[in-house]
């Protein structure tokens, strides 16, 4: 055993080393390097460091009339708002009639900030590392001869996608806005939902090369401090070249790495994230993606849709149960079919048995191979439709539906029952409001199918048992994944298989174990006007 492990460990170490070498040079060398006092030197350096990139704009100018001081405005084209820079930075600087300030650094900076830069978001930077960072986020840097400091003015601009209706998690009733790729837009969308000073936002940067801004948002006093701390710790432990999507973060900070089940919730709807924050969860926003993460996430969360809370509780409860049932169908239907056809024929009602037997008559493949192939074909179709240009998508569905669905049955390769089973399974898997949970069902379906083919219901039961054990071993940021079922919390069952009326949900879910349990104290009688009759 040791022989096997050692080389692998070595390889892992090598990989680690190689990664360190690759990522270090990107920001590490600038650490603690002070801004040059000489303007010319500074400009030379920045040009050299950025490889004279074409989108790096250096605008040299002189401040003051009588005794002008050489200065330079530096920015990256496309990252900033040109108009604002012209009006509020360049123009005041060039029109300045300042008495030549002494070259005492602090005084100059204060003077400049006070008088000449008409932008809200301003900071002094003394080191190159920070200077590069803010330049690349979209700040305008002002270098002044002899200062040894840089004034960074944030006028972030450039192309940005508008807030539109999200393409996932659609609702019939509910807000239509969705997150965009800009973290600032996203935080503002949440702030517009929760106008509380206790909504706190912490920001950090992840990705050695990409330097992606990451936001941790929570409601102070509702979110469990230990969970917030855990989120911070885990995020800070990440060392990776680039973070291009929140999926990177999700994968890196999950409690359990080897599981098909998602332990972090993601959503592109501000209302869902706001609801999560109000329950005491913590949101993790990543710049560059509309998908915001929400932790901790227990299994139950993946069955909740935003709309559950916007429509009446009776229909919401019905839909909730429908989702649980659909999940089970998506997970087990093909395996149950294979098990029954291959092993438990006595369980089928006689007329149904006759129908199934008639269909099986002359079909060349065993039921398992049939079901397995059709499931694979369906997965291929689904993947094709997702990846194809949308113009061709229709062709795929026609070819898939017609050729696979009809011809295969007519040719007698596959029995119609299997086609029905596969389609039912497919439709059920799309019921899930959380796409990532549906993926778990998608993968496990094959496992169950194999078990059913080899051991019948016994095999299915074994795998299901294994799954239950696995699920109860999972945790999301320290919260047991099966909460409130196991460990059992009677109070929290109100929002599981059922969605009880809002006026019965007085308390926040105990799942998160926070300190402030009361959510509302609406007296249902009063709020619904039942006492007003007199």
């Amino acid at each position: 055993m040791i022989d096997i492990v050692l080389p692998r460990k070595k390889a892992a170490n090598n990989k680690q080393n190689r990664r360190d070498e690759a990522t270090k040079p990107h920001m590490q060398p600038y650490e603690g390097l002070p801004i040059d006092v000489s303007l010319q030197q500074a400009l030379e350096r920045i040009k050299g460091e950025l490889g004279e990139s074409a989108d790096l704009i250096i605008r040299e100018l002189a401040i003051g009339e009588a005794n002008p001081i050489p200065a330079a405005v530096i920015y990256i084209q496309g990252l900033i708002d040109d108009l604002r820079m012209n009006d509020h930075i360049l123009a005041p600087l060039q029109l300045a009639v300042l008495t030549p300030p002494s070259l005492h650094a602090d005084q100059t900076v204060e003077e400049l900030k006070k008088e000449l830069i008409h932008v809200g978001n301003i900071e002094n930077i003394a080191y190159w590392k920070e200077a590069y960072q803010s330049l690349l986020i979209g700040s305008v840097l002002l270098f002044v001869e002899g200062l040894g400091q840089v004034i960074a003015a944030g006028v972030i601009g450039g192309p940005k996608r508008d807030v539109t209706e999200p393409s996932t998690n659609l609702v019939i009733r509910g807000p239509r806005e969705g997150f965009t790729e800009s973290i600032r837009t996203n935080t503002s969308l949440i702030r517009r939902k929760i106008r509380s000073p206790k909504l706190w936002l912490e920001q950090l940067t992840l990705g050695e090369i990409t330097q992606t801004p990451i936001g941790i948002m929570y409601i102070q006093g509702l979110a469990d401090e230990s969970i917030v701390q855990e989120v911070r710790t885990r995020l800070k432990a990440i060392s990776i070249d680039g973070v291009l999507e929140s999926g990177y973060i999700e994968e890196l900070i999950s409690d359990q790495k080897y599981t098909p089940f998602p332990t972090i919730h993601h959503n592109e709807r501000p209302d869902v994230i706001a609801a999560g924050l109000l329950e005491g969860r913590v949101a993790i926003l990543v710049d560059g993606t509309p998908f915001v993460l929400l932790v901790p996430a227990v299994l139950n969360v993946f069955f909740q849709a935003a709309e559950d809370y916007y429509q009446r509780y009776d229909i919401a409860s019905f839909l909730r149960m429908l989702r649980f049932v659909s999940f089970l169908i998506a997970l087990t239907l093909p395996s149950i079919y294979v098990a029954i056809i291959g092993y438990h024929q006595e369980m089928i009602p006689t007329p149904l048995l006759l129908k199934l037997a008639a269909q099986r008559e002359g079909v060349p493949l065993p039921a398992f191979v049939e079901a397995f192939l059709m499931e694979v074909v369906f997965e291929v179709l689904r993947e094709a439709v997702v990846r194809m240009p949308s113009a061709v998508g229709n062709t795929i569905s026609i070819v898939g539906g017609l050729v696979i669905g009809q011809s295969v049955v007519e040719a007698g390769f596959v029995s119609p029952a299997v086609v029905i089973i596969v389609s039912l399974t497919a439709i059920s898997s799309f019921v899930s409001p959380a796409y990532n949970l549906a993926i778990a069902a998608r993968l496990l379906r094959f496992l169950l199918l194999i078990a059913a083919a080899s051991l019948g219901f016994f095999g299915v039961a074994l795998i299901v048992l294994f799954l239950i054990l696995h699920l109860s071993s999972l945790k999301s940021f320290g919260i047991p994944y099966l909460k409130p079922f196991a460990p059992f919390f009677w109070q929290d069952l109100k929002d599981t298989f059922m969605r009880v009326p809002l006026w019965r949900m007085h308390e926040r879910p105990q799942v998160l174990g926070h300190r402030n349990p009361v959510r509302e104290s609406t007296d249902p009688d009063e709020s619904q006007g039942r006492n007003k009759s007199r």
Partner: protein
Amino acid sequence: MSGRKVSRKARAVLVLLVLTMLAPLLAGCWDIRFLDRMGIVFAVAVDDDLSGKHKYKVTVQVVLPQNVTGGIGGGQGQPVTTFTETGDTLFEALRKMTAMTSRRLYFSHTQLLIIGEQAARKGIWPLLDLIDRNPEVRTGILLLIAKGGRAEKLLETTTMMEQIPVQQIRYAVNTNESAWSQVYEVTAQDVIRDAVHNWKQSAIPAITLSGEADAGNDRGNVDKIKPDVVPRLTTMGILRDGKLIGYMTPKESRGLSWMYGKFKNTIVKVGCPAADTPGNLIVEILSNRVRIHARKKAGKELPEIVIDLHAQGSISEINCPDVNVMNEQTFKDVSRLTEQAVRQEIEQTINKLQQKFKSDALGWSTVIYKDQAKTWKKLQDDWVSYFPQTPHRMEIEIDVTGAGLRAKSIVK
């Protein structure tokens, strides 16, 4: 440190994955049975072997699913076929059939066991052991006796209402039980349970072919509007010690149903309430409840069986003039008449079983055993001779309420 931890986890997952993939190979698909490699047996018929070489001649009716029409795959041929083989036991004959069948016979969906009259007279217990012992065969299969003929003929007769002949017979028993109740369903399990102590004797419904018995073997039979031959239920056949000893008359047969409270629904024909008026009046019984107790009688050795019967019904057909259903008294009269009719039926049944068959198909033995356990101990060994003398008393109460949608009959 953490690196090693991850690798151990990864190893566990890998091992698990390999094990999972190996499991199917190890199991070798266990006892998988392919649906299209099975011959689904719907009914088994047992007759005595006329050649005398073996004890039984067994016929099975196997469904050919591809010929059962409706949906894709409905074919042209007959929906069923039969195979016949002889043997000294049921199982022997069934296994010998593999010489003829391309598929393994499958018995989990078998619904009927029809026993030819001759075979039934010789005893049916030897046939039931297999049914109870074999896990594949359901003990809930129905038993029938082919009255006055051979059971195989019943399986070789085409039927109109159901494509599969066995279904026609099987559902006929069910329909008859719930709406008329001359016969009722008796499963193999019931008979096996009776046979354990052999105190209570079994009764099994009988069936016969009505028409030209030999005309049913091809489609010609069902291509006509009026088929040449149809299977037809008759009455309950009475067994003693697992052997058929005779049949009840239709009325007696229903008396047996009354005693067991078997039906959901039946009708009773009574005379007109007004004396000397010809005609009949039909009362439909909608619900009934029967309680049978054994009561000790002072100074007598045998306990008295008390039959306590309550039923509700309504008048559903009036062929009498001057029946005024607006009058409360009419209902009282009709109730009394119905009570009498039912009493008569039951009386006949008891009489026949006690005096002629001397077979406790009424289950009084179990009643005494439950209610008068001490007395039963004394009777148990000689119950055969005690049974005919056991006295009984009937307390029948039938409430007739309601007379349908019409008030006065148009019959003058």
